[in-house]
């Protein structure tokens, strides 16, 4: 198989696995750091203009 095709497969797999793992890690991190109500499934609190730090605090 040509290297470019291998690269494309690896890249596609990395995106799918990376997004899945990032979601799981974010959820676990939010449970540890933030209020019990925060599940870390979104970035609403971290992108809120009135919130100035980047921890999940919802």
């Amino acid at each position, binding site marked *: 198989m040509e290297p470019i*095709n291998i690269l494309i497969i690896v890249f*596609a797999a990395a995106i799918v696995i990376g997004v899945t793992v990032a979601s799981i890690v974010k*959820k676990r991190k939010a449970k540890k750091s933030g209020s019990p109500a*925060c599940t870390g499934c979104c970035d*609403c609190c971290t992108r809120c203009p009135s919130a100035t730090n980047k921890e999940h605090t*919802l």
Partner: protein
Amino acid sequence: MIKFALAGNPNCGKTTLFNSLTGSTAHVGNWPGVTVDKREGVYKKCAEPISIVDLPGIYSLSPYTPEEVVSRNFILDEQPDCVINIVDATNLERNLYLTTQIMEIDVPMVIALNMMDEVAKSGDKIDAKKLESKIGLPVIEISALKCQGMDELMERAYEESKKPREGTTVLKHSALGHLIGDVKISLEGKGVSSPLFHSVKLVEMDEIETEAHSDCVKMVEAFKKTFNDDIFGTDFEAMVADGRYKYISQNFSSVLTRNVKKGEERLTNSDKIDKVLTHRIWGIPIFLAVLFAIFHLTFSENFLFLGGFFAEDWDPLKRTWFEGLIFNGGIFSPGVMIFNVWNEIIVGKLFGLIGSGVESISGIAPWAVSLINDGVLGGLTAVLSFLPQILILFLFFSILEDSGYMARVAFILDKLFRKFGLSGRAFMPMIMGFGCSVPAMANTRTLADEKERTATIRVIPFFSCGAKLPILTAIAGAIATMSSIKNPDIITYSMYLLGIVVAILSVLLMRNTTMRGDVPPFIMELPSYRTPQFKSLMMLIWDKAKHFIKKAFTVILASTIVIWFLTNFTWEWKMIEDKTAVSQSILASLGRFIQPLFTPLGFGSQLGKYGWVFAVAAVTGLIAKEDVIGSFGTLAACLAAAISVEVADIDIDGGVSAVQAMVDATGATVPGLISFIAFNMLTIPCFATVATAKAELSSKKTFNLTLLFWIGASYVVSAAIYLIGTWPLTAIIFAGVVAAVVVGIVLYNRSHKIA
């Protein structure tokens, strides 16, 4: 590090002051044990760094709300070096009520008289020196918004923090003055700090104090036996409140000189506007008209309905760069103009270049070209094409909220909401649902009644969030092409109204069956109208755009890759070379498996061999609602070859054309398409919202019932739309079912009367 606390009423400018003083050093967290924001930052311009803690906005130090308990405990237990009490100078008497309570604590204190710029603008005058001498505390005039007086404030506060201060009370000469003094002496004997504050609270029979100092309660009880006020009897809490307000009125009213002629009532600009916008009869129609105007400006292809004056293909910009972007038999709305420019020039050209570039890479396999062009670019194009209209809609809603109008809408809807078992307070989380359901559900924490809160959480997803907008827009565009309704904005507006109507009916059903209860009273402070700040609006839009693009290039990108894979491979892990054999793919077989479930809804088995696309798209919406159109884009691109063989040549260059391709391939009808929109709007929302609902609802049982509720509501409403739209006589059957449900509810209520 020395510590200062900012205390004051909500909306007095505390956060603005906090942000100005602390800048980028601010840190936001939660007070332990409660879901109340805790903000801390550092002020570095004094002789030494000062830690600033922004306490929650409160009206008093009573123990009725988590915010009040947090503030009170912080001042009493953590003993800050100084309390800066921010007082809204435009509402002096109301704000000073809290001041008279904080004064009773043994803590250094200064008063920051905020919004002095607005006082000056109105022509009123406040004698700060006179206030300072009467109240016995330093008073500094500031304007947190204009950053005036901040340095002087911090210097005075720093000076005061070096001097110990004993609490004073305005109730010394009131009818309860002696009792307060006696209780204070008793507490001093026990070594209690801030004895004056605790003694006043004990006289009020404050829950926290009576538990902590039960022996002093006997003194108060004994006094009650010998005392009886003409108006308040032995309600000492009411007497204390009355005493405070009387003192404020008698002693501090003279510091304020109003710019109004004697005998005249001054109407502020906000009052004048409110006479129209909160009119008893016209308030709600005006709100609906404003909402329609927003949708018209964003989605209309016949702006101001001028199309009837021009020929069908009228376009004065023909044979120019802007052909078809601004005019086409009528004038496009600003939202549609921006949408066209974005898709023709930016998304279309850019992604077209990338697609061509990929094809020209030496050695690249055809499947790799398909993965990138059909899978990735097809899905991304479909989703990103709607970015301008999402931002424009979000901009309009932000303007309404920032201007203060949304607070008025909550007020005018309160009377109507009460008929359905909710208060106007529930409107605020619902309206947030138009942006995103996640913070909307979190915002229901402001609702004290648990049943009202549960009912509101359940109906929030019915208020279509920004993520559902691509579904609405794409399918409305397809419907507009197929039917006599040529204005997609009317379809989009109607779908939003449908969500609101279903929400109201659902609440009616819940509040008359399993969630019956009294509707709590609704008291709300109406902020003054103000011009939204351009900078903060642009920051909000930028923030929204970043979030949307980030989601497109992460979650949606991953989803489109998975969908491409499932569409191009069989269960035997063999790639499908012949595109017309797409029905052998993994996704097609999974789709066909679930397709019959959607038959009563109009997008199931009746749609033929490609109808599974609708079922699959609806399921991918569980990950993120934008995925529905992303899936259409990917699948339409993947199925293009097969569909062209059987139906017609198709040209897919965005979400709308992807849907049109699917409609052509499957023969979906208008009722079926409207039913599809309704299903996606009302069904189980995205995973993030589901997780938030699970966290916010009181029990696992309530959460499971909520999931069933969403599935049931979406199925029933979508089925009704399709069946009545296709066979109008079925409306009689549905009417009969509704009548039976109403009778059932009435009989249920009679047999389960609330005590």
